């Protein structure tokens, strides 16, 4: 805070600088308070069962115990299986997202087909229907197709193009100059060619943001496994961790170790993609 009565700019500058440092310290303290649960989680994952709730909190465990992590990979269905399931679902889900969202986005932006804008509007407004309305019919369709208790139930939905992803890609493709596409068409290129050779290469940044956003949703998906999966060998991480947590009742180091393993990919990608991710959240207003 600057002093209002002081008119000498020199002193004012110093005051402003001190204020800035003070505010920075306050905000960073608040930020650290925000990630307190994460810090506690990591610290607890390396503690013995009896040390977890030591108070005052000993942040650096002494002695360091890796029993929690060992337990994860020693069970009848080890954690590596859940990890593998999550990776399979994420890779397939992302392939689906990539094609469904970029193709539809390109079409809504650059192909003049009959009824385009109306269809797009209907598609967008369908996001207003709460998922609770369609959750049962969707379940019935999946069970009629024999997809209950299969991995496919987790990745197939992503091949249909989520409204938000289609919206992001459409907004991006709209900004591609029409002249570029017209020129290619006059040279005899067809839409698939333009999509593949012009639209996609020029939208690498948008696509990487899209894939990151969807990676978070797919990796964090808890509801679909809850509804569709029965056999433990098929569980993906969030559901497996929940199951593990119920199973390992109050074995907090092991539960926290499972959380750490589950969160690592997200955290790494978050810090890598942070900037473009933040940008896209702001422009699309995605609310998870």
């Amino acid at each position, binding site marked *: 805070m600057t002093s209002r009565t002081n008119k000498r700019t020199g002193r004012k500058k110093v005051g402003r600088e001190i204020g800035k440092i003070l505010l920075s310290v306050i905000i960073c303290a608040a930020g650290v308070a925000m990630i307190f649960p994460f810090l*506690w989680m990591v610290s607890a994952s390396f503690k013995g069962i009896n040390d977890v709730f030591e108070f005052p909190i000993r942040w650096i465990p002494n002695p360091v115990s890796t029993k929690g992590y060992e337990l994860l990979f020693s069970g009848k269905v080890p954690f590596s299986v859940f990890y593998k399931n999550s990776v399979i679902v994420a890779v397939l889900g992302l392939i689906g997202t990539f094609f469904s969202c970029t193709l539809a986005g390109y079409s809504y932006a650059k192909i003049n087909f009959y009824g385009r804008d109306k269809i797009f509007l209907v598609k967008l407004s369908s996001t207003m229907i709460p998922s609770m309305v369609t959750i049962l019919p969707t379940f019935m369709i999946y069970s009629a197709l024999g997809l209950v208790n299969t991995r496919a139930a987790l990745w197939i939905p992503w091949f249909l193009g989520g409204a938000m992803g289609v919206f992001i890609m459409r907004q991006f493709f709209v900004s591609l100059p029409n002249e570029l596409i017209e020129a290619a068409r006059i040279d005899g290129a067809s839409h698939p060619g333009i999509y593949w050779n012009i639209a996609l290469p020029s939208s690498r940044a948008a696509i990487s943001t899209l894939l990151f956003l969807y990676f978070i949703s797919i990796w964090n998906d808890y509801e679909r496994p809850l509804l569709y999966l029965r056999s433990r060998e098929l569980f993906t991480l969030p559901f497996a961790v*929940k199951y593990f947590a119920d199973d390992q009742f109050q074995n907090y180091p092991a539960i926290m170790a499972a959380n750490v393993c589950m969160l690592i990919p997200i955290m790494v990608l978050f810090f890598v993609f942070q900037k473009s991710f933040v940008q896209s959240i702001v422009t699309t207003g995605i609310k998870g």
Partner: protein
Amino acid sequence: MSNNQHVPGNEQRLRKRAKPGKTGSGLRSIKAKENFWGYLFILPNLVGFFVFTLFGIGFSLTMSFTDWNLIKGVESAGFIGLANFKSMIGDVYLGASLRNNLLLLLVIPINLVLAATLASIINRGIYGRSFARSLFFLPYVTNVVAIATVWQALLHPTAGPVNSFLKSMGVSEAALPMWLSDMKWALPALMIILIWKDLGYNILMYSAGLQNISKDYYEAADIDGANAFKKFLHITVPMLSPTTFLLTTLGIISSLQMWSIAQIITNGGPGTATYTLALYIYRSAFITYRTGYASALSWLLCIIILVITLIQWRGQKKWVNY
């Protein structure tokens, strides 16, 4: 689509093709091609829409008038008219859910006030701005299972760090809240967790809103001798009203649909202390197998959301002011 290319040969060729007018086969084939590729590209999208959204809506609406039981199958479902909707009246679980949903909306104003304050401080230019922002944002990208299990440990009634801290501050053993296993404290605990989870998202949206406010306003206010608080109240708050409006709308809609975090962390308990409408729908459909009733409840949720959306559309002009 206009053809403004100045390549003489091409222009001629196009003109020749386009000349016969709307009945010409050339133009028609261009149009047919556009339609073909256009629809082919959005085919997965259309399948999703027709099968899962449109059919889903019809199916769910039909089933809401039946006594469908998920285990017994669709065939055994019998038409029971409005019975499902009638039995909503006086349903204590539904009453508790709606009450909790209403209380959970309190999260939104608290969150927005915190977020607007923090965002405007962060935006004034502090050191480590993007670092601070990402710290606040971290809970938002974390999944609900990790959030739930970590907070269950933090709020552990006897040994958890939160209660240990309260104890060290002199709170007597008997007065310590049992948090998630306490009838009175379970919902407030859930609210704290939800505020913590969404704060970063709101800060981010407010930061973007703040960057759109012209510095001229603040300079003019400086000349008039306004202090920082007055500037915040009379410039920042009104200029942020579109963002506030958007965040309130999104907040209400997602708050009403929230169920998985409540399912993991307390499963609605203790008693009905943390039941929400969406969680009750999930439980009716998949746990207690009153599936027809669940369909009816989902329409109640849908109608509530549509009404709120309509009110907000109407109110947008009135409440958003620069």
